[in-house]
């Protein structure tokens, strides 16, 4: 609280006037620094509506240091004039004076003095007029008194150019009575206390207003990772659509289940060292359903089930090689094989889990990422059904404009890339892959011939990066993430239109 004396004096001043007072005027009339009055205004404002203070700013001309000196002692040229006696003064003498140099040239141009260069004993200065009028000083005195009206704009600028005047902005308050004006001030309470509640004293007290502009104190809490929040939402969507979650907790897979069972030929580039992580220990898988393996071998090397096959020498050694699974479709293959060993009932499966690629890494590619996959197996499913179910799935992500492009994938036929219209980018962008599993994959498993299996997949990282506005995947996944990003990430509502992003994909 500012000096109570000043506060009270200020309040008394305000009470006496009808409209209000200016803080600068109050300061000068009380002979205190302006800041003291400003402090009093601030503390009164904190009490509520005692006073109303309006901030005003005005421009004002002020004398510079040199200007102040001139206002007191006269302009340099006048001082030169007055220091020259009737008998004149040697030029060298004059130049020794502090105002000599500047004053000499000005006095010369005013024709107040003259130089006799031929004088014996060196050049000598004489007065040429008897009396002078020091206009510069008079003008500056006017400014000092605050009487600017008599000065013309041109004259002000002239003085400003001579660095005798400067223009300054002055901030002051126009203070008037507030709605609850009073000349006496009661002390305000900061907070409600248990005592006040107990004895009822809160009824008489005034309370300091809160500053609602400030932020609150951050709660002490833990946070979920944004990628996992998005995963939870995708899981939720699949569950809402009646899909059962597949057990994908097996990162190590045999080439057999990852490739061969999907009718992916053994020379396929995806099976290269450049694309897939192979294991040195344990290097080989040692157990396969033997009769199924024989059927897979046959369909690759000789054909069958209506297919000509790839007609190459299929090797068990290739199929045995252990790898880090390159897609969760390896698990789908295991699940469909298992399904085929029972009396067939229609199923809808999904999974969201890690897959691994031995690829070149960049801002959007890591050696591991999460694959989202959906699979439906039933009698008589059509390509139209696949597009229909994709439409339902993507609608749940807030995406309704879809179109499909023919594509190639070794284990689906037809294969379709899914594109959605991105309202922000104003173009079609790829959002996933889909297809109908090939008969060469399904029939050796033992599934009935009239059962079709449709499937689609997308990555979890890409929609998450778009949703949370992250450009480098390393800022989202792995140990290099900035925890502040994790702390600050909002909840995930994939279909919400209220978020700033335009759609998640």
């Amino acid at each position, binding site marked *: 609280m500012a000096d109570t004396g000043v506060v009270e004096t200020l309040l008394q001043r305000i009470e006496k006037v009808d409209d209000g007072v200016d803080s600068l005027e109050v300061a000068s009339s009380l002979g205190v620094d302006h800041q003291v009055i400003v402090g009093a205004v601030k503390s009164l404002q904190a009490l509520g509506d005692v006073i109303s203070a309006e901030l005003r700013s005005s421009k004002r001309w002020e004398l510079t240091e040199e200007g102040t000196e001139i206002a007191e002692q006269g302009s340099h040229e006048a001082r030169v004039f007055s220091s020259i006696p009737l008998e004149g003064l040697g030029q060298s003498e004059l130049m020794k004076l502090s105002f000599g140099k500047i004053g000499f040239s000005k006095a010369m141009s005013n024709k107040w003095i003259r130089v006799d260069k031929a004088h014996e004993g060196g050049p000598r200065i004489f007065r040429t007029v008897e009396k002078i009028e020091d206009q510069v000083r008079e003008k500056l005195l006017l400014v000092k008194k605050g009487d600017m009206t008599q000065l013309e704009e041109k004259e002000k600028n002239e003085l400003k150019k001579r660095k005798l005047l400067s223009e300054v902005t002055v901030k002051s308050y126009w203070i008037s009575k507030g709605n609850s004006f009073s000349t006496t001030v009661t002390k305000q309470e900061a907070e409600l206390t248990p005592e006040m509640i107990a004895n009822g004293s809160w009824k008489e007290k005034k309370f300091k207003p809160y500053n609602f502009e400030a932020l609150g104190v951050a709660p002490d809490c833990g946070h979920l990772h944004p990628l996992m929040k998005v995963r939870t939402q995708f899981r939720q969507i699949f569950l809402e659509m009646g899909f059962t979650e597949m057990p994908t907790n097996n990162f190590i897979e045999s080439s057999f289940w990852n490739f061969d069972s999907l009718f992916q030929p053994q020379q396929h580039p995806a099976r290269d060292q450049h694309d897939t992580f192979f294991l040195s220990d344990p290097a080989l898988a040692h157990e396969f359903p033997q009769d199924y393996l024989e059927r897979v071998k046959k369909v690759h090397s000789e054909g069958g089930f209506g297919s000509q096959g790839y007609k190459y020498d299929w090797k068990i050694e290739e199929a045995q090689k252990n790898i880090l699974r390159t897609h969760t479709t390896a698990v789908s293959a295991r699940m469909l094989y298992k399904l085929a060993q029972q009396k067939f009932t229609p199923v809808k499966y999904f999974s969201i889990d890690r897959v691994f690629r031995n690829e070149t890494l960049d801002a959007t590619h890591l050696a591991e990422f999460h694959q989202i996959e959906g699979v439906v197996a039933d009698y008589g499913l059509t*390509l*139209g059904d696949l597009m229909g179910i994709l439409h339902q799935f993507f609608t749940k992500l807030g995406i309704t404009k879809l179109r499909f492009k023919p594509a190639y994938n070794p284990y689906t036929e037809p294969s379709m890339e899914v594109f959605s219209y991105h309202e922000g980018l104003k173009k079609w962008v790829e959002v996933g892959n889909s297809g109908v599993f090939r008969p060469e994959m399904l029939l050796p498993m033992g599934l009935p011939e009239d059962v079709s299996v449709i499937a689609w997949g997308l990555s979890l990282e890409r929609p998450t990066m778009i949703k949370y506005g992250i450009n480098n995947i390393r800022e989202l996944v792995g140990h290099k993430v900035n*925890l502040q990003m994790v702390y600050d990430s909002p909840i995930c509502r994939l279909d919400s239109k209220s978020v700033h992003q335009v759609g998640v994909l």
Partner: protein
Amino acid sequence: MPTVGVKRDLLFKALGRTYTDEEFDELCFEFGLELDEITSEKEIISREQGDSKASGASDIILYKIDVPANRYDLLCLEGLVRGLKVFKNKLEAPRYRRVSPANGEPQRLIITKETAAVRPYAVAAVLRNITFTQERYDSFIELQEKLHQNICRKRSLVAIGTHDLDTISGPFTYTAKPPGDICFKPLNQTKEYTATQLMSLYKTDSHLRHYLHIIEDKPAYPVIYDSNGVVLSMPPIINGDHSKIALKTKNVFIECTATDLTKAKTVLDMMVTMFSEYCFFSALITWFKLSSEFINRKVGINESTEKIAQLLTRMCLLSQVTGVGDEIEVEIPPTRSDVIHACDIMEDAAMAYGFNNIPRTTPRTYTVANQFPLNKLTELLRQDLAAAGFTEALNFALCSQEDIADKLGKKIADTRAVHISNPKTAEFQVARTTLLPGLLKTVAANRKMPLPLKLFEISDVVLKDETKDVGARNSRRFCAVYYNKSPGFEVIHGLLDRTMQLLEVKSARGTGYHIQAADDSTFFPGRCAEIFVSGKSVGRLGVLHPDVINRFELTMPCSALEMDLEPFL
């Protein structure tokens, strides 16, 4: 996905009309292609080597088109134009025939048994009366290169050699000889070399050195001779200079040597059919019979048998209604090696119909959803651990041996870790066997954040397990760390108590959970305890050893907890 670069104006000329970039992009989309880039030679050179190098280059507009990996028939301008024209009903699907030479004597390629050990298969054909122009010639050479890079798997499966038939005389012999016994003047060289000399000559050749490994360590190298002993080629490395083709070549002898016969035939068919329009010639055709009902049922449309036959014909699959029921007979030209099952034909019908014209329907499949119990437990627990004030981290499943062993004060042999045979960097040597290193690395990357740091992760580690078909299994773990100026064992211990409360396990020796002092080189001596549930060990907690803290580039005391979650299912 291979990319084919074609000159735009040449393409439009061949297609018989011009398109705007947008129109052509749209056409590509419908046909399953992607107009990847619109550029010019000048632009490519300028981007790769700088503006100064590009000044003299051509600024003719090039279209870079992405082609599906199984459509080898679209890898050159000729095939692309043929496919698109037939698709747009501008051209009838071509029918390829084999014709005999005027003298009625076909050429012969004799394969000797010596090739069995190195490269056992070879097929050959002759393109007669071809008329090359510079553009056609360039396209012919480029198609060879595209096939070599894709279906031929960098010449390891198939290698193509093309020769001017008028400079050589059949019958030809494909054999294998010790490298010292093979001697010829290779393409674009001025003198003769033995095969041994050639292998060292090409060691520094930026292009050919990538193929040397295919035969390098074999005792005998493959070689093709004509009846006069002229060397045609030493596959899969280099052709002879004698029989090289040129613009004026009229008759081209094409040989494909291979380790995969099916692919060799496909490649030869491609070479021959793509350029057959510039000559008179032939090949074998396969036939498929299927019902229009099959296509309607699989695609989800309802079109007449005639309409479906028309759709297929637009995809270069000449189709006729046989009149027997709704049967359609489909001719598969040698260009379409990707068609191996009726479902491939069904896809072409769907493409010609237009994927986006197919009505979108909802399957009536009725199912009840179930969560995978382990994931259900994980999801529920994560929520409550965050509510307990810990923040979730997400780390990689792959890491270095050092991370899971040396840095934690353990021996790699004791970890049961699975090892990766082909990691590109040390970051991918093993699958993690513990979640702790990932959390400590996350702390290290966030040392500037206000203390304390409280992190957790629930995820899978991988352990060797003989009882599994692949010899390894995942194990779901829960790990947490507390990093502050004081070790905070009581905080981590409190988190364990809270977790057990959430899992409905009481604190009790024998029937519930308890902890008991343990020795572990990862932890500070006397500050580690083992967690037991119903008498079985499920994990450990404690204050980390200062050496461990240092190795992870941390500076503060840290306590940690890691345990198995699967026993709580």
